């Protein structure tokens, strides 16, 4: 029985890791774009992005999952009721058949991009003005300044809060079961439902702990590597 449960949980954990990896892959770069948007000198863009970040950070990820998964279908149903749906409504309606896994990735990427953007922003804004001024008097362009001087220092500063956020992401993947995506908690729950077994649920903790343990070690290594200088 133990092995049977282990194999099944491992299968569920595979999905967990997939959600985790794909979310990082999408949210790390998207977060930087959102960050630049929220620091834009063009006020309408800045406030649009800031409002968006407020909405995403201000509502539960579970709710966002539900909106991404069921929202387009509701739009489709409504579109059928009105005589002339415009192309935006038709486009949204066409999403109504989106599969559950895609919905999870979309919701997670958007959610985490917003959190990451704020971490990036904090990192960028913590770099002293003097660094920019030194670059300026040395005749560096804005992009040279950012990529050659600022970025490295930002990376060093955001690694600790990033580590925190990324560990939270590992655990947040369990929310995917809200829309019936078969990740590790779901698979443990199915043992409770069908066989009346509770211990597989407790057993899932081991998977999370080992994975987060590895991440903690990895982040420790990166931090140590960047410790060759301090400001």
């Amino acid at each position, binding site marked *: 029985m133990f092995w049977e449960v282990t194999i099944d949980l491992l299968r569920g954990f595979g999905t967990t890791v997939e959600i985790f990896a794909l979310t990082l892959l999408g949210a790390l770069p998207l977060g930087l774009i959102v960050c630049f948007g929220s620091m834009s000198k063009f006020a309408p863009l800045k406030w649009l992005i800031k409002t968006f970040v407020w909405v995403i950070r201000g509502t539960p990820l579970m709710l966002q999952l539900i909106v991404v998964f069921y929202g387009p279908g509701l739009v489709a149903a409504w579109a059928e009721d009105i005589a002339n749906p415009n192309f935006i409504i038709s486009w949204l309606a066409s999403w109504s058949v989106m599969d559950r896994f895609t919905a999870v990735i979309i919701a997670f990427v958007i959610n985490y991009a917003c959190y990451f953007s704020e971490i990036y922003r904090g990192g960028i804004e913590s770099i*002293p003005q*003097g*660094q920019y*001024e*030194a*670059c*300026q*008097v*040395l*005749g*560096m*362009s804005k992009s*040279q300044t950012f990529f*050659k*001087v600022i970025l*490295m*220092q930002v990376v*060093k500063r955001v690694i600790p809060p990033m580590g925190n956020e990324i560990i939270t992401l590992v655990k947040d993947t369990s929310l995917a079961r809200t829309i019936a995506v078969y990740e590790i908690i779901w698979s443990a729950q199915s043992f409770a439902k069908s066989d009346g077994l509770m211990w597989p649920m407790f057993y899932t903790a081991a998977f999370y702990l080992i994975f987060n343990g590895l991440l903690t070690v990895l982040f420790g290594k990166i931090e140590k590597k960047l410790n*060759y*200088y*301090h*400001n």
Partner: protein
Amino acid sequence: MAILEVRNLHKSFGSNHVLKGIDFDLEEGKVLSVIGSSGSGKTTLLRCITSLEKADSGKITVNGNYVFDSENEHKLTKEEIRKNRLAVGLVFQSFNLFPQYTVLKNVTLACELQAKKRDEWRKNKKQILEEINSNAKDILAKVGLSEKLDSYPCQLSGGQQQRVSIARALAMNPDILFFDEPTSALDPELTGEILKVIKSLAAEKMTMVIVTHEMAFARDVSDHIIFMDGGVIVEQGDPEQVINNPQNERTKHFLNRFKENS
């Protein structure tokens, strides 16, 4: 012809009128010291000349090129602005070294980025980089840091860091080198090494403008001294005369306070 000309320069921050019409010339190879109490506008003057701040009105020319001219409608292109920046070097009070790079890389980085724009960069990349490196090493030797090429700024004392920042500015081969209170962030026992470096540069006829609170040093190293107060030049002239025998009441008052403190 003067290498630096400043004419009727004005600058305000909001309602705070910091520079109220500054005029002076500086000849090539000369050293000018600017003294005055905090808030007198010395640092703002330096920041306007080095284009870190934009003046409100007046005229600044370096080597005959306009850095700023409120009368002239001609708008400087980005390239012209960058060229103007390279004509002047600035040593900051707080060093502003790049913490993630070694001493040597701090000095060579901007030179390398400049060199990439040269036509022969593609062909002679290796040779150009070697030239930049050996030039940087020469300059670092001059400021007494040959032993520290591979150190990081955080491993150095304040005085050593400031010498790296002087070397970094020198490596760009500026026409004029500006110092913004280069010893103010240092422990008193470390100021000597910086002053020594500046003196050796003066002996090589480097054109320099130094904002400083080191009165004795200003007197010894400068060819000319400007005393600023409340955004105007109150008194200027020969160092001996300004420091030892000031004519203006405000200058006397300022220098007396300094004597009391030291």
